[in-house]
């Protein structure tokens, strides 16, 4: 660089960026800049300055107070810095200079009042070719938008390769696995002590809710508490991870990120009738523990993994192919302005939605911010954005762009259905023949010549009733067969389309492009090999597969880190990086960077197995801590960033509703299929159950973007139009109203009571069972007292009893309260904090 570091700091980073590129490509060039002879300066004064003053200053000068497009042309610096579209002059390829393009009315069309003469344009070309001599030394006064320290950004932690870290030797018996060594080291350094290990019962409920979203049954929790097997923790975790209910729980986390919904939302809230195939793909992928790098590839380019160019493609079963096509639903299920009449804008917005979601979900980067200008905080250029946009502009996500546009759906291969279609077609043909045959028989019978005008009408008029009926029957058979012709299943999915490279859109405006069309390329900051790294691809392809491969590459510094952080967040309520989808400069720094890298390295080494990662985390001593407190730690680290305890978490709506249903053995855990309305009647297992609506797991309830179910939003379900990495937890009276008054918790409370009551026994035994089902543990003395206060009173005194003192009640063993009393107790328990929170 020619500029001293101090000058560089003063200058905007945009110049730094410009110089950075220049120095990369032509390091010699800078030496020759800005030393000009008198003739050259005279050329500027005579031919260039007057034009600038007359035609440009009005909108691009400090004196006029205007810097349209962020551009100032009243100083050398302003010209070099350029505006939103980049530097206005290109000294390496003078002819490519933005200002020339604008003057020539190629794209920007400046000045807007009319094209200047060819002579003037020619002068500008000459001027730039001689190096743009310009004596105007005053600084550009408008600060350019970008304030990123480009050089510094390259050293930012998340853009660095992962470091090979080894866990410190466990310094105490507290440690159960390497995670704990990292955590302990950090904690010791701050002089913070961990709380005690949590009880078996609490750990079990925690791990059940965390991994499968359903509490343990009374039998399971009793068995676990009493087990003497040394590996009971490990075996419990293995069993949970092997259960299909695991994918239903963790698939939902992913669906939050993937902004999954069963309708479009936005302007035209059309139903997505087959979006569920993507949802099922996600649940299935978690259950089969698809290596994460493949999971990434499949969602971005599953269709291309099937193509003949993939050497493994030939071994793919049809079921695999169906999965891979449905996986790309990831790119299609976002909200779209279907009725947007500016169709190129619709497409640009769609591509933007895809880039934004992809960037946040897989890379933890807010790439979408670079649509209108270089990213304000992160080193992501608008040109980076549009190089990615070229990939998605070359991908077909929409079936058509008619008045109300239609998203893309693809048929899924299924040779069995194709075969049955063939069989079916034969039947249709036969039925058709029978209709024809019978018709001609009748025509003959009634002597209607085949070549008469409108023979069928004539026939109709002469047939008797029984003849009419026999013909109608045959026709009906044909019609029904035609209607019931098997169809290939469909999924929302993308496919390759014509390659369409786009150039930078000025301020994100699809009508105003500048510069060359950009070949698909990875963001500059993440380029490893050469500064010009593009996505190596066949000329006729979109580059989508290459992009997916690049993201899923073990060397990508972000991908594994972002994912292990998400899994961690799922088990602790907060990630090691608390901004799960923003690993950029405005994101939070990791609290335990070494641990994060060690986890990411281990993840990659274990073939990106998510289940292995869960196992590692939930079997750690760190995970096993209680949610208790100690005053010193509380004082030093109230936010628990050092992980000296577990975090208490409120149940999300899914485990909340699923727990209610499973507590009374009603939860329908079947896997997959079309979305169910929350109000849909359950399979009639019991008459009372008809009051509670669908009994399916909450992940299968319909997500209608424009008409979200009340109870979902009340309990902080995601806004399903955008990728959400962490749901908020609000506390509002409506949640209490739901639990107090909605038919589901009311019926569950009643049913719970009657199930327990019908088993006989005394109140002490019943309480034990209720507490076991609702909290997954044994009843405490306090609970016994409280229940006793309700139970032991005479019926008419029951209600008043609990406000009296708790002394001198007869023993709970001798009490046999009424069913109604137990209904009251059960319902009250469903209102409690202990049920609603995971310790």
């Amino acid at each position, binding site marked *: 660089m020619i500029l001293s570091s101090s000058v560089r700091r003063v200058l905007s980073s945009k110049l730094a960026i410009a110089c950075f590129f220049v120095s990369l490509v032509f390091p010699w060039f800078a030496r020759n800049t800005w030393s000009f002879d008198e003739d050259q300066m005279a050329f500027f004064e005579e031919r260039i300055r007057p034009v600038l003053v007359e035609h440009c200053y009005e909108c691009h000068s400090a004196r006029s107070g205007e810097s349209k497009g962020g551009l100032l042309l009243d100083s050398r610096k302003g010209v070099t810095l350029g505006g939103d579209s980049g530097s206005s002059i290109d000294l390496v390829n003078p002819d490519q200079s933005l200002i020339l393009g604008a003057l020539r009315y190629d794209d920007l069309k400046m000045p807007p009042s009319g094209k200047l003469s060819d002579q003037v344009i020619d002068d500008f070309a000459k001027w730039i070719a001689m190096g743009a001599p310009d004596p105007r030394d005053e600084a550009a006064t408008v600060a350019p938008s970008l304030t990123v320290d480009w050089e510094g950004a390259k050293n930012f932690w998340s853009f660095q390769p992962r470091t090979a870290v080894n866990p410190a030797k466990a310094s105490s018996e507290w440690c159960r696995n390497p995670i704990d060594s990292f955590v302990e080291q950090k904690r010791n350094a701050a002089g913070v002590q961990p709380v005690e290990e949590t009880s078996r019962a609490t750990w079990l409920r925690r791990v059940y809710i965390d991994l499968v979203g359903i509490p343990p049954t009374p039998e399971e929790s009793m068995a676990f508490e009493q087990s003497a097997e040394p590996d009971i923790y490990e075996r419990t975790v293995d069993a949970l991870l092997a259960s299909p209910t695991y994918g239903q729980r963790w698939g939902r986390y992913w669906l939050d990120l993937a902004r999954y919904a069963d309708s479009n939302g936005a302007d035209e809230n059309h139903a997505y009738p087959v979006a569920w195939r993507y949802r099922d793909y996600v649940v299935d992928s978690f259950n089969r523990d698809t290596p994460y790098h493949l999971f990434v590839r499949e969602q971005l380019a599953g269709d291309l993994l099937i193509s003949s160019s993939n050497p493994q493609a030939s071994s793919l079963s049809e079921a695999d192919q169906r999965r891979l096509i449905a996986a790309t639903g990831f790119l299609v299920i976002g909200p779209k302005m279907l009725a947007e009449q500016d169709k190129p804008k619709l497409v640009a917005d769609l591509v933007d939605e895809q880039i934004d979601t992809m960037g946040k979900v897989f890379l933890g980067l807010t790439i979408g911010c670079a649509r209108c200008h270089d990213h304000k905080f992160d080193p992501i250029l608008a040109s980076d954005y549009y190089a990615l946009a070229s990939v998605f502009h070359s991908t077909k996500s929409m079936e058509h762009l008619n008045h109300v546009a239609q998203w893309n759906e693809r048929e899924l291969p299924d040779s069995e259905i194709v075969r049955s279609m063939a069989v079916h077609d034969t039947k249709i043909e036969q039925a058709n023949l029978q209709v024809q045959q019978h018709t001609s028989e009748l025509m003959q019978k009634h002597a209607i010549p085949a070549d008469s005008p409108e023979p069928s009408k004539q026939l109709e008029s002469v047939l008797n009733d029984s003849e009419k009926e026999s013909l109608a029957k045959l026709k009906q058979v044909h019609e029904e067969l035609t209607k019931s012709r098997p169809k290939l299943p469909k999924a929302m999915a993308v496919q390759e389309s014509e390659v369409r490279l786009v150039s930078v859109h000025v301020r994100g405006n699809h009508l105003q492009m500048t510069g060359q069309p950009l070949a698909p390329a990875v963001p500059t900051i993440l380029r490893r090999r050469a500064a010009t790294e593009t996505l190596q691809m066949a000329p006729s392809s979109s580059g989508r597969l290459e992009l997916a491969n690049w993201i899923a590459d073990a060397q990508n510094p972000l991908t594994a880190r972002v994912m292990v952080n998400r899994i961690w967040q799922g088990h602790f309520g907060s990630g090691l990086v608390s901004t799960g989808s923003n690993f950029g400069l405005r994101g939070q720094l990791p609290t335990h960077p070494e641990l994060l890298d060690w986890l990411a390295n281990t993840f990659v080494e274990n073939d990106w197995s998510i289940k292995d990662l869960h196992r590692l985390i939930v079997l750690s001593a760190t995970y096993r801590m209680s*949610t208790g407190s100690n005053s010193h730690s509380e004082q030093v680290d109230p936010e628990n960033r050092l992980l000296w305890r577990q975090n208490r978490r*409120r149940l999300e709506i899914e485990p909340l509703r699923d727990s209610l249903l499973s507590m009374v053995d009603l939860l329908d855990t079947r896997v997959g299929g079309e979305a169910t309305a929350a109000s849909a009647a359950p399979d009639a297992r019991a008459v009372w159950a008809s009051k509670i609506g669908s009994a399916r797991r909450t992940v299968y309830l319909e997500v209608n973007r424009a008409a979200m179910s009340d109870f979902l939003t009340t309990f902080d379900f995601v806004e399903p139009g955008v990728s959400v990495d962490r749901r908020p937890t609000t506390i*509002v*009276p409506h949640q*209490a109203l739901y639990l*107090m*008054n909605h038919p589901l918790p009311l019926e569950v409370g009643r049913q719970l009571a009657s199930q327990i009551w019908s088993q006989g026994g005394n109140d002490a035994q019943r309480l034990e069972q209720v507490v076991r089902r609702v909290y997954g543990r044994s009843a*405490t003395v306090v609970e016994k007292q409280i229940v006793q206060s309700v139970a032991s009173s005479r019926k008419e005194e029951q209600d008043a009893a609990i406000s009296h003192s708790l002394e001198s009640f007869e023993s709970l063993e001798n009490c046999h309260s009424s069913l109604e009393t137990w209904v*009251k107790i059960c319902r009250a328990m469903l209102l*409690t904090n202990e049920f609603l929170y995971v310790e």
Partner: protein
Amino acid sequence: MWNRTELSRRAMLGNVGCGFGAWMLASLLHQQSHGMGSKALDGLHFPARAKRVIFLFMHGGPSQVDTFDYKPQLIKDDGKPLPFEKPRVQFSQTGNLLKSPWAFAQHGESGAWVSELFPEVAKCVDDLCFIKSMHGSNEAHGGALLKIHTGSDTFVRPSMGAWISYGLGSENENLPSFVTINATLGHGGVQNFGSAFLPAEHQATRIGNLASGISNLKNPELSESDLRTQLDLAQSLNQGHLKSVGRDSHLEARIQSMELAFRMQAEAPGVLDQSGETESTLKMYGIDAKQTENFGKQCLLARRLSESGVRFVQVSHSYWDQHDALRAQHQELAKQVDLPIAGLLKDLKARGLLDETLVIWGAEFGRTPTAQGTDGRDHNPHGFTYWMAGGGVKRGFSYGETDEYGYYARENRVHVHDFHATLMHLLGIDHEKLTYRYGGRDFRLTDVHGRVVHELLA
């Protein structure tokens, strides 16, 4: 039984933590509602000129030049190109100037110009305080809605109702302090009435539509006393739990919110129930006519909630976004709201409530004086009209001006931040002092901006 007051106070402290001053405000006002007297006002930064707010939000953006911002020059130059530049960023492209299809006339003693779209509101102009020079910064609905509701179109921030709830607390401990009726779920959705990083109790309680009211408000089986018994049982279990796990502001807040739920359950149905209103009142709000019934009921509900002490009530009306079909649609939408709005103003006045209630009418932005197609106007955040009435603002007054066509706010410009600052001021709050520390920074509704427009104050 456990001590509710002590607990809720602890919960408040736990939640509010760094915003102690604001908590004091809330606490003092809370006491006032229990008859603790004028001392409470010491807690406010200024004497409050209004105690509560009703915000009539016209989602979509009614056109200022077709309603309250009379522009004779626009009529003269109909069809001509705009003689100055259009904004750098526009939502859509527009063509030449388009005069208002509606005639304007002067009304009241103040002589305010109002178009034919609002014949009933026109009769109330002497109570209105117009701001004709509002301007914002976002030309799209989502961003503009967030800007007007939260002060930020970039980040997730608490909505103004949440800030006011946080600052002032509730006047009625049995009702939420912030209610939104018929809220818009698009364009920022819940963020527009959410509490963001403020304690969750300050987010709005949503009343979807009047048929459903507040969902799950009624227990189908139990009497109120049975419910109380059940809740007491649950709360004693909660107390036992809390004792065993130690302090936790979330658990405490939840205990508190269950009590609020119970009280809402007892009180809200009465407030929501309009059957006790007289026929003439219903008529005043247009509840007797199909076209005005819906919005009329919502305005009446707003009055009932406000009367019962809800600090901030928002009523939203959709969808004033006439990129085309301006003539038909603006006409229809205005008909739906004109009479109910006038009814609300008259009713408040008759009940002596208008002095302490600030009614605000406005949208996320206005519309362009230039035409989109032949019968439409585009979004225009650069100059639009708001009006306020009651609580501490001048009557029959108009402030600020747009240019001769009504495109840009030109004189005495009032930015959205200025509007927020003024609103807070009217409620007795210094917008620079009501802050909340979050993520290492003190945040406020007006960010680092906002000027109290003293000229508006009575």
